[in-house]
């Protein structure tokens, strides 16, 4: 965005504020280690790996939280002063944090570690993308006028909590389909046997979907209120708005599938996978379409 001398000034200023970004890039490797440990637990069937995986992920989450808080204070030290939720880098960091956080809560509540094998890689990938992709800018930048609103924090947090819940639902749906195929064909392996039964997966998935759905609704409503004061209309069919509505409609159909007898189970899992694809498109794909949410691109 900037040219010549501006860029140099920012680079030199950056070198002082990179502590948070450095911590966050190390957390990427911590999550990767966690993922490997979850995988080893599944393949080898040793409980010790599972315990280690949980501890490593938890340590990652603590470091991750410190990184976010540090970035927040750094932005104040730079005289910019805003919550770290204002661009693609910061949103990826928060998304990854929310996924890990949600997952560890679920693991603690259900005492089941299998899901970690399918969910911790999502945290890892999001963080790796944020930290190592050359197209993602990790600089702390001041807020453009459109983002200067009290609704920023509420809007972004609710949206990303919903994305995180849907990420978990995606993981659970994949496991569900794997398990269902295994049940139907009668083939067994130690790996498959460690997956909890379909009914439990379906129930857990539904819990994630309703949390995600409520959060997404809040995200869309707070976004609407914000858009109403910033753009002059609570709904303008901006591609990101529209895609969030599409996501909302898909998950609304998931919830209704549970009420319609005989449609539950497999259909829910498939729709949840489609729903998560919509989440990803709302998050990343929309940037290839023109629209008003351009600050989320870089």
């Amino acid at each position, binding site marked *: *965005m*900037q040219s010549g001398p*501006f860029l140099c*000034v*920012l680079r030199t200023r950056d070198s002082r504020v990179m502590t948070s970004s450095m911590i966050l890039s190390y957390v990427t490797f911590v999550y990767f280690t966690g993922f490997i440990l979850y995988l080893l637990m599944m393949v080898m069937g040793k409980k010790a790996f599972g315990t280690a995986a949980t501890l490593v992920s938890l340590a990652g989450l603590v470091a991750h939280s410190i990184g976010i808080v540090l970035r927040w204070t750094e932005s104040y030290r730079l005289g910019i002063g805003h919550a770290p939720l204002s661009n693609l880098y910061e949103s990826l960091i928060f998304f990854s944090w929310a996924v890990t956080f949600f997952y560890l809560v679920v693991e603690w509540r259900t005492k089941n570690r299998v899901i970690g094998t399918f969910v911790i890689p999502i945290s890892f990938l999001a963080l790796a993308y944020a930290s190592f992709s050359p197209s993602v800018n990790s600089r702390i*930048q*001041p807020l*453009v*006028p*459109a983002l*200067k*609103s009290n609704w920023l924090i509420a809007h972004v947090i609710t949206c990303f909590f919903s994305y995180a819940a849907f990420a978990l639902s995606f993981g659970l749906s994949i496991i569900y389909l794997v398990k269902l195929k295994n049940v139907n064909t009668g083939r067994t392996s130690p790996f498959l046997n460690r997956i909890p039964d379909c009914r439990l997966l379906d129930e857990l998935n539904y819990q994630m979907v*309703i949390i995600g*759905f*409520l959060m997404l*609704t*809040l995200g869309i*409503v707070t976004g*609407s*209120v*914000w858009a*109403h*004061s*910033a*753009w*002059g*209309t*609570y*709904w303008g*069919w901006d*591609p990101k708005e*529209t*895609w969030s*509505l*599409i996501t909302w*409609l*898909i998950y*609304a*159909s998931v919830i*209704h*599938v*549970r*009420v*319609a*007898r005989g*449609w539950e189970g497999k259909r829910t899992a498939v729709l949840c996978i489609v729903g998560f694809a*919509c989440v990803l498109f709302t998050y990343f794909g*929309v940037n290839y*379409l*023109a629209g008003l949410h351009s600050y989320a691109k870089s």
Partner: protein
Amino acid sequence: MNETMSCGSNRKSGPGIFWRFFSSVKLTIVLLIILAVVSVIGTVIPQREASIDFAMGMDPRLFQIFMSLDLFDIYHSLLFRIIIGFLVMNLVVCSIDRFPVTWKLFSHIPSPDKSRVFEGISGEQTCILSGNNKIILDRIERFLRKRYGRVFSKKGDSYSSFFVQTGRFSRFGVYLVHLSILLILAGALAGSLFGFEGYVKIIEGDKTDKILTRGNRQQKKLGFDIRCDKFTVSYYKNGMPKEYKSELTFIVNGKEVEKGTLLVNHPLYFRGITFYQASYGTIPGKKILLRALANGKSFSFYVSLKDHVHLPDNGAELHLEDIRENIAGIGPAALISILPKHGNRVSFWIFKNPGLAKSRLPEPMLKSSKFNPSAFRPYTFFLEGVNTVCYTGLQVSKDPGVPIVWAGCIILVTGLFVTFFISHRRIWVRAENHKGGIRLSVAGMANKDPAGLHRYLLKLVNNIRKYV
């Protein structure tokens, strides 16, 4: 224990085909998915104002098809409205269809003595209370009354039964959600019927009472004047914009009624109309700086729009007819016409960047006198500068549906919370005579979250024991 949600599809007394069609949850699912798919189309094909460039490059036959299907304004198309109409019908019919069942679940009080629910309960759901039976029973009932309000009991010789419930209003959560959807749609409809959306550019220092409406692009009178007293942009040290600020004055019948500062995210309201800081820019002002070269001598002078100057030497009148900010990507240009004392009027365009004009304009145009800066002999004219003025771009809208939409949003979130996270828990307590005391058992049924119910029952047993 978990009960499944009633689906309503088991009505036997012959509802019509219309009713059966619209009371189906499967229809809801299909409609939600269709609506999602149609919405996708609108994000792929450019819509409304954005579609013009796209449509121009299209095959005319394809364009016809797109137009007839309203694909360039799909969210306002008949197709989209029909789908929403179906969804509304579906929602209303389903709500009516299921209401009797919901009402029964809400109001029905089951027998306090129901042995079926106690079958196969876990050991943790029972406990032994020792002491005087009569006092213990009394304490149990008092505890339940304090906690749940109404207690239904049935006293027997060998045992007594109690029934209490909590969260039964949550049965109506789903009605709140569906009502809120109708409210939001009603709000949107009210906005599109009784509101408008428009845009206006006001030059610093200028005032206007007309705006350009969106969609039909017509001028609309506001009934009062808006004056932009000042527009400023401030920047951060790194060059990023920090703030756009317009100082506005609202004038009614020539009287200044209100002044206000308009910022992004901080709209101004005046007489039911809302003003938003949408954009800003510069447009050519009304004055240009010209240089004329004749016989090796050059001189510069200003000329204003719709005004004229006399050229020295021959006294011809030079009129400034038009100023354009950018013609065909070449940049600023001015149309001047010269009326000599004797002879015909000559008029031609002068570009600020003649080199670029030479490379961009087609040959025949360059040859014509219309684009020749030397068309009036012996002068050659150069456009040295166009003075620019700043304007502020305001989004103007009136939407009486907004309060209805906000009410809908609040009800939607409340309704979702109630529907998902509050369950109707029905609890049976049985107190059996046991040697030297009472054996207490607790069982329950809930319409959701069986694990939560189990935890709740265990806590309840503990609390009763402590209280007694």
